[in-house]
């Protein structure tokens, strides 16, 4: 298949559809309704829509929980990747889907940033979706090229203030977690840096390891291998607690930049109007899945952990979403960023 520019190619084509999903689409799954009440839910295959590419961190997390959730619900869960425009294509599709609980969206922090980033967004997060529950909060790390002068986060802050017109800050594309974290960093420090967008984390990290750009902020999922091999310089982790896989890395609060708090939080959504009973069943299944030792173990390897059970609820999720929508509306407006 096309080897256009690598990550453009990924975006374009790998909305990589499983044949299963193809068959499901052909047979009208998710379209028809009126098959009785919610008692026999799910009754048919549930589709989990991941608005990002297969194999990415969000996709990986989704696939981890899909299997135990399916076992709990007594059905089959098909994961479908509907990529494009920072996750808004997939989210838009689910917003339009039948509210029968058979089409579920897994989305991350991007759910709360899209309204500020995209002028013509076809949906409203709070109005068009029911929250099901939070899944995980993936920590982010501030990392620099190996030979970048600053040694600690405090040094880095001082350095970028003094050299704001020289420093380059990489990110994985507009609206990507790394982009948002970079914006928050600039807000926290009070500088405006030259941002260098890439198409995905892979190429951005490649150029960071190759020393072409100065620093970036990205998920532990992507950076911990490079950090522990000493190929990049790690400054801090952006969550309140240190990360188990990187025990020596201080948090931003410890390192003197407490304003830089950001995690790639993931949650499940269904279209607004989904019967509360169905939402409850999904949320219960999510809680069970998050307690599975295998899921905990797999997430630990990603440098993250399931959220506590009380966060895997529709209410906690909605509260988080509301809070984040407010935060990002301000940061993004201040930075004057628009995605389209």
């Amino acid at each position, binding site marked *: 298949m096309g080897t256009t520019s690598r990550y453009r190619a990924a975006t374009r084509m790998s909305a990589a559809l499983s044949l299963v999903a193809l068959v499901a689409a052909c047979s009208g799954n998710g379209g028809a309704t009126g098959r009785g009440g919610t008692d026999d839910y799910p009754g048919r295959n549930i589709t989990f829509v991941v608005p990002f590419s297969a*194999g990415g961190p969000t996709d990986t997390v989704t696939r981890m929980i899909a299997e135990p959730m399916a076992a709990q619900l007594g059905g089959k869960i098909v994961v479908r990747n509907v990529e494009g425009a920072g996750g808004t294509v997939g989210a838009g599709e689910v917003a339009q889907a039948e509210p029968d609980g058979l089409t579920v969206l897994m989305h991350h922090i991007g759910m709360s940033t899209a309204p500020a980033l995209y002028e013509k967004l076809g949906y409203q997060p709070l109005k068009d979706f029911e929250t099901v529950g939070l899944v995980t909060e993936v920590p982010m790390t501030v990392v620099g090229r190996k030979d970048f002068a600053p040694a600690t986060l405090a040094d880095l802050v001082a350095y970028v203030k003094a050299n704001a017109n020289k420093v380059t800050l990489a990110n994985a594309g507009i609206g990507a977690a790394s982009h948002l974290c970079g914006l928050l960093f600039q807000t926290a420090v009070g500088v405006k840096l030259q941002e260098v967008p890439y198409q995905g984390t892979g190429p951005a990290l490649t150029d960071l390891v190759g020393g072409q750009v100065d620093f970036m902020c990205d998920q532990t999922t992507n950076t911990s291998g490079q950090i522990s091999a000493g190929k990049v310089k790690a400054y801090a982790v952006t969550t309140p607690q240190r990360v188990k896989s990187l025990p020596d890395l201080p948090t931003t609060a410890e390192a003197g930049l407490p304003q830089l708090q950001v995690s790639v939080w993931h949650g499940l959504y269904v279209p607004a109007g989904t019967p509360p009973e169905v939402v409850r069943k999904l949320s219960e299944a999510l809680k069970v899945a998050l307690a599975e030792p295998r899921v905990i173990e797999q997430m630990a390897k990603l440098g993250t952990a399931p959220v506590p059970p009380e966060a895997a609820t529709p209410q906690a999720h909605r509260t988080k979403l509301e809070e984040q929508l407010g935060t990002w509306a301000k940061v993004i407006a201040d930075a004057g960023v628009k995605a*389209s």
Partner: protein
Amino acid sequence: MELFDNLALGFSTAFLVQNVLYCFVGVLLGTAVGVLPGIGPTATVAMLLPITFSFEPVTALIMLAGIYYGAQYGGSTTAILINLPGESSAAVTALDGHEMARQGRAGAALAVAAVGSFIAGTVATVALAVAAPPLASVALRFGPADYFSLVLFGLVVSIALARGSTLKALAMIVLGVLLGTVGQDIYTGTPRFVFDQRELYGGIDFVSVAVGMFGVAEILRNLENEQTRATIVSKVTSLWPTGEERRRSVGPILRGTGLGAALGVLPGGGHVLASFTSYAVEKRISKRPREFGHGAIEGVAGPESANNAAAQTSFIPLLTLGLPAHPVMALMVGAFIVHGITPGPNVITDEPALFWGLIASMWIGNVLLLLLNLPLIGIWVRMLRIPYQVLFPMIILFAAIGTYSLSLNAYDVYAIAFFGLLGYVLIKCGCEPAPLLLGFVLGPLLEENLRRALIISRGDPSVFLTRPISAVLLALALVALVITVLPTIKRRREVVFAGEE
């Protein structure tokens, strides 16, 4: 010798029954998706990734890798038989491969493609085993400015893809580059040439363009002609390459292998350039450049070898640095993570059995592919005897299904029809689709790296000359341009004197 210990470890891992089995499953699936237009290795790997979660990590990666390089073998088959390239590299193979098929030499083209790919795969596997880490550190030296110059160089030398007028080829490249700009700009998010159509935001899919410009346009052209309407090929000569064809293939295979192996290492898109560059090189140094585009076996042997070698060495950044060079590699990073292996530079030392096992499996995979593909040639060639009025609707049907399956986007199917018509009109005007496809593939890479280089340098264009790699590549591009243009001027003079020709 440490290398032999490592290889012994690798082969002892790769030869485990389940690993050989899944290696076979991988290359078989790869061949299948390579042959089917539309559905490609990225979709297939994405689809099968969850299934591999229950495998041993090394088994999972062996199978996923097999799908990727297996698809490179399979991709050439439809390109040669029915002028339907499923991926950018196979588009080059279609140029001479399909001409060979029309002359009844499809068997020879397929055989040379398979053998060339096998030799390339073997050499590239050795390169991986011997020099992966040093090659990877060289690759890391390539920054955005260097990639820009590399792609520019690739574009300049690839003007040779054109059979006819250089001017028309340039026009096609420009048109291709323009088509490549459709969609959201990656730096600002600004939609370009999308005409408010949400479906165009992600850009035009390569498969739609290739299937339309090559496959559908070819069908339209065939339908014009009474004779080809019956069957594509009236006579099929020997299935195997003649002695002369074999002799003529050796050089291109070896050069293609070297070129592909070197370019494949570069994570910023080197593998995309491999087959284009190999074709250009072969045409340039051939004693019979006029045969290119009319069924020159060198035009199949070189690019096919280059493309397979590049497919294999493009694993180097992934395996040694944990940095994916391609969407399929990005998926494999996912496979690493799911299996609890943190992708990164430590994989070689922490998981030697996995690293060396995967490398050894690639060679086994290449042997399996050769054993799989050579006997299939007879069957494939027989396909050409299907009456054309039966074959062409099937081709269009499969192309439409395959393209639709990429993202369930009806636009991709409309795009085939559009590009089919466009391709037909262009052929009628004497413009070849290959340079357009080249521009379409390389244009976005060129722009991305140009702008990134200028962003990093804060708008200072001197980076292209002050970075040594970039400067050398630009100088080479200039030389290539001069060599291309000079004979044209000279020939024009000759034509004036010769009158005809």
